[in-house]
């Protein structure tokens, strides 16, 4: 059977990725999208799109019934699940098949077989694949430590804990079981020896159901944060040919053991040249592009071919070069990797040679779910894009990727970009010394570690200096009168102009005065001059302005000219330079006192007296629920909750006289639920 119209039961970059191959193959595309995703590129790029009402994954991308109905409504004849969401749901695979649609994925039985880690391990052990012996937590001894507690149904690190003290075993097992139950609906956990400084190496396989299993090399995904992969590469650095061959062979046996059909990944824990089976992922992996680049394949095309019942042949060409992928996340590595949300006001990666596909030769590939202007919410995984470099050698690929990332213009959100650049340039990484505990072993600046690397110049301070002048030039350019008089010219100099900035994007929180970057400068006939030319705040001995334009400033710091690209949107200033990207927020010159009330404050619309208070402090309220009643001019005004939330403050009581604008109550909005979707 030939697929004519394919629905991708997914979102973001993977939907775009699958569509890309579909277009090449001539297959029409169907997107499904939640309300929050309606404006994302993947919806536009599909030939037809079907809305899944709501925002949470449970309402949308996890609703197999709605997806199947969407496929029917849109006239699709096949469904590709992407990764995450329903990709490893055997039930969904069956629903799709039962609906008479082609399932672009492994047989449901294979999904089931690999879905339980405990069962999968047993299966693999039988097939001769090395596995770590299970440890019974009840009878564990000192010699068994450290232990790793894992959820049988788990993924993405959830429900996973390392135990180093015997006394903690029972409580950690209990906690893990609790976590597993709430995350996966299955409290089954098991323990195995924890391999210190282990590496995560996985092997890409594709079975065609006609007796062929292609083994498309391995990937090293050791650099992880909280069990979430950050950097992935192929081939794995430093493996002996024997170990590599043994890994490939083990993966082949694993796939053959369950007569695997479709693309899958066999994950191993590697230490030295020993390795053990971890699990098998019965889907396309996030990090599949590195394999595609080096092997010259299109894994989605292979998935489609298998789903259409075709026979696979091994790639004609031998693997070529080295590929490294990073996952660019909207997250703050310095604040516990906290996901970030907001509008991506600029997203440009320079030197991209291909998107969602292999470049003709060595180069840079970008698989991105977002673009400039995209809104990044908290409903789904915070991954913005995958940036992949392919080069003849590992060193070149690392350098190229770090360079491209550092030159990328990513504005509007805090991302892990600086961290990625730091990792790619890290001595340990460059030398191939990678392990899953990388972030525990190395202190990184992007995670709040000490400054290291080039010079002592403070990136925030020097960027603030550039921003101040760019803003001044902007203001000058926006003048309605005296437009060509030098900016901020004074015939009697009494004081410097002061530009007040704080690092970061505005989030409504008050800034301590210590964090304010005050840039003091003079301007006039000879251009701009900083009040403190000896630049103590910068960690330099001299700073002066060389060239100033509203979007580009060149500063000379200690005799070296450095260009700064400055983008301004309202009070937000993004500065990009060799010192990295620095986001700054301009403090307003004036604050209207009327604006200085806590978010969620309900204000008195007019002077009056409080005649009724309908709620208590701490009480949850729903949108429109009366909070209190105010009487003024013989009229009663009901003040209602503007949204669902909790009354966190109630400074008035019945009989109080209040002035117009007085705070009557503060309602804290209820947190929107947030769920990840990704393994």
């Amino acid at each position, binding site marked *: 059977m030939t697929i004519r119209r394919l629905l991708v039961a997914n979102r973001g970059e993977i939907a775009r990725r699958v569509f890309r191959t579909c277009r090449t193959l001539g297959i029409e595309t169907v997107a499904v999208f939640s309300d929050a995703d309606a404006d994302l590129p993947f919806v536009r790029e599909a030939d037809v799109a079907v809305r899944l009402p709501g925002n949470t994954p449970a309402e949308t991308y996890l609703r197999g019934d709605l997806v199947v109905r969407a496929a029917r409504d849109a006239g699709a004849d096949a469904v590709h699940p992407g990764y995450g969401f329903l990709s490893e749901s055997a039930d969904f695979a069956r629903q799709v098949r039962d609906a008479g649609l082609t399932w672009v994925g492994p047989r449901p039985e294979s999904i089931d077989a690999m879905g339980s880690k405990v069962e999968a391990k047993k299966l693999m052990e039988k097939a001769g694949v090395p596995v770590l012996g299970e440890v019974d937590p009840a009878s564990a001894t000192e010699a068994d430590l450290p232990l790793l507690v894992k959820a049988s149904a788990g993924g993405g690190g959830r429900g996973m804990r390392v135990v180093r003290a015997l006394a903690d075993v029972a409580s950690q097992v209990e906690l893990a079981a609790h976590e597993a139950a709430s995350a996966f609906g299955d409290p089954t956990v098991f323990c195995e020896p924890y391999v210190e400084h282990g590496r995560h190496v996985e092997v890409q396989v594709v079975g065609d159901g006609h007796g062929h299993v292609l083994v498309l090399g391995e990937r090293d995904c050791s650099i992880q944060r909280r069990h979430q992969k950050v950097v992935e590469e192929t081939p794995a650095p430093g493996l002996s040919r024997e170990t590599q061959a043994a890994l490939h062979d083990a993966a082949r046996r694993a796939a053959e053991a369950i007569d695997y059909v479709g693309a899958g990944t066999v994950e191993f824990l590697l230490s030295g040249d020993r390795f053990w089976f971890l699990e098998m992922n019965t889907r396309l992996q996030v990090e599949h592009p590195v394999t595609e680049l080096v092997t010259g394949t299109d894994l989605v095309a292979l998935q489609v071919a298998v789903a259409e019942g075709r026979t696979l042949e091994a790639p004609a060409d031998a693997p070529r070069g080295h590929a490294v992928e990073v996952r660019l996340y909207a997250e703050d590595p310095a604040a516990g990797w906290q996901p970030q949300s907001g509008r991506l006001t600029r997203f440009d990666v320079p030197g991209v040679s291909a998107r969602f596909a292999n470049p003709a030769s060595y180069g840079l590939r970008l698989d991105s779910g977002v673009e400039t202007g995209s809104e990044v919410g908290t409903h789904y995984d915070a991954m913005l894009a995958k940036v992949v470099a392919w080069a003849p050698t590992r060193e070149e690929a690392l350098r190229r990727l770090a360079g491209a990332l550092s030159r990328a213009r990513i504005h509007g959100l805090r991302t892990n970009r600086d961290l990625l650049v730091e990792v790619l340039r890290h001595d340990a990484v460059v030398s191939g010394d990678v392990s899953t505990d990388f972030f525990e072993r190395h202190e990184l600046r992007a995670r709040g570690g000490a400054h290291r690397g080039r010079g002592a110049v403070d990136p925030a301070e020097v960027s603030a200096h550039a921003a101040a002048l760019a*803003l*001044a*030039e*902007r*203001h*000058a350019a*926006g*003048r*309605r*009168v*005296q*437009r*060509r*008089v*030098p*900016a*901020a*010219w*004074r*015939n*009697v*100099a*009494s*004081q410097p*102009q002061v530009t007040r900035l704080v690092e970061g994007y505005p989030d409504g929180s008050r800034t301590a005065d210590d964090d304010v970057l005050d840039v003091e400068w003079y301007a*006039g*006939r000879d251009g701009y001059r900083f009040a403190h030319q000896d630049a103590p705040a910068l960690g330099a001995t001299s700073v002066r302005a060389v060239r100033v334009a509203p979007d580009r400033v060149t500063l000379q710091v200690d005799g070296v000219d450095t260009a700064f690209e400055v983008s301004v949107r309202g009070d937000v200033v993004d500065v990009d330079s060799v010192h990295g990207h620095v986001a700054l927020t301009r403090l307003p*010159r*004036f*604050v*209207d*006192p009327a604006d200085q009330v806590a978010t969620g404050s309900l204000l008195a619309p007019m002077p009056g007296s409080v005649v009724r208070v309908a709620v208590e402090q701490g009480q949850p309220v729903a949108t429109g629920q009366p909070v209190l009643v105010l009487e003024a001019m013989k009229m009663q005004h009901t003040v209602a909750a503007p949204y669902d939330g909790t009354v966190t403050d109630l400074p008035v009581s019945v009989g109080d006289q209040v002035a117009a604008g007085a705070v009557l109550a503060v309602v804290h909005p209820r947190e929107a639920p947030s769920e990840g979707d990704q393994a």
Partner: protein
Amino acid sequence: MTAPPDVSPRRAAMLDKLAALDEEHARAVAGGGPKYVDRHHARGKLLPRERIELLVDEGSAFLELSPLAGWGSEYTVGASVVTGIGVIEGVECMVIANDATVRGGASNPWTVKKLFRAAQIARENRLPTVNLVESGGADLPSQKEIFIPGGELFRGLTKASAAKTPTVALVFGNSTAGGAYVPGMSDYVVMVKEQAKVFLGGPPLVRMATGEESDDESLGGAEMHARTSGLADYLAQDEHDALRIGRRIVARLNWRKARPADHDDFAEPDEDVEGLLDLIPEDLKEPFDPREVIARVCDGAGPGNRVAFDEFKPLYGTSLVTGWARVHGHPVGILANAQGVLFSEEAQKAAQFIQLANQVDVPLLFLHNTTGYMVGAEYEQGGIIKHGAMMINAVSNSTVPHISIMMGASYGAGNYGMCGRAYDPRFLFTWPSAKSAVMGPQQLAGVLSIVARAASEAKGEVYDEAADAGLRAYVEEQVEAESLPFFLSGRLYDDGVIDPRDTRTVLGIALSVIDNCPIEGTDRFGVFRM
């Protein structure tokens, strides 16, 4: 400022004068001195220039006027008030800010003169006025010189209002007794909570007058005026808030310049502005070519201005250069002294050129370096008075805006013919190299000496040569001192002493300000004596 060895003596001398100017400006900025400044800051209050910096648009220029007012007098340089032209929400405004660190911001005679001058500039150029009020009223020891003429300040406010140039008062502190009429006469009044104090009589005076016990807040607090008397239109939470409100008020004035065309398309001068410092001789007896100034101050050749300077009548009356140019795109007619002396030809050329500018509504720029009209039998017989009178007639009755720049000498009736202070140029700025008096110090001393010698000879006495030398030296020194820029600026005979390199900017601002009212050249002059 130490000059490198390859610096010309002219430049070195000018740099010295500019350093001295910086020092005098610093004295004005220092206001009442560190003790009072610190006390003011400790009260959480801003200095007048700090308030102005917050009031004006970011990136905009501020042209401070008469910063040296009171120089050489018993009062603090600057005369306890800051005046200047700033841009607020895109509107060029006259900004007046009392300096409460100088004797509580009280007005002395120089303060009043400075305020009059600011009011005149606002009136002539049609500028809204924003008063940043914090003044204890009249400096009582000098009240005799202030009280009666000072009434004009309040009359001026309401006349300005009537002339549809709005007035705004932001009251930061004391504004009592007569001072209460500054907010009282203003169109918009903002008072800062717990700071503004506006009443006719304070508690002691009230008790003396009526026996009533009262306090500052009930007599004149901001809250009271905002809620009860209605004198305050806006109650500001603090100084920043007052300035914010002030900006919003100006934003809503619906201000439209009479000549809104802002000329954006013009070239910078053909010659490097730095060259101005090498141009002016230390000894003003040595002439310099004003075309060198024009080439460094006016727009260069470029779009809309094919030739930087079109000289008029270049072969006639060559001691005065006349011609057409542009500054920041604004057309100007220029009269510039080239050889110091004005002869009959120069005077007639000037009279004709001033009429031409009036015919086509083009402002005039006077670049002074004149020792006056030529004397001597030949010239008197040639009608130099008549011709000088024609020039003075023309400049007096001309109705296009005039701007004067004192570059070098401005002596005798030459000062009048070239539109000196008494001829009410819209703006008059002085270079540190300038001198102005009835005649040069040496000449004046010499004249006195000759007259004295003639008197003693007439009486048959032996002339005391030693005493004469002493007198000459004394007079020369005094006249020299009284003809120098700081002294003249201190007496409000100009609007400020400027760095020659800033001349172009100052003119650009002045011409933009002038565009707030229509330019209508006259065709009616006094009778030209032919």
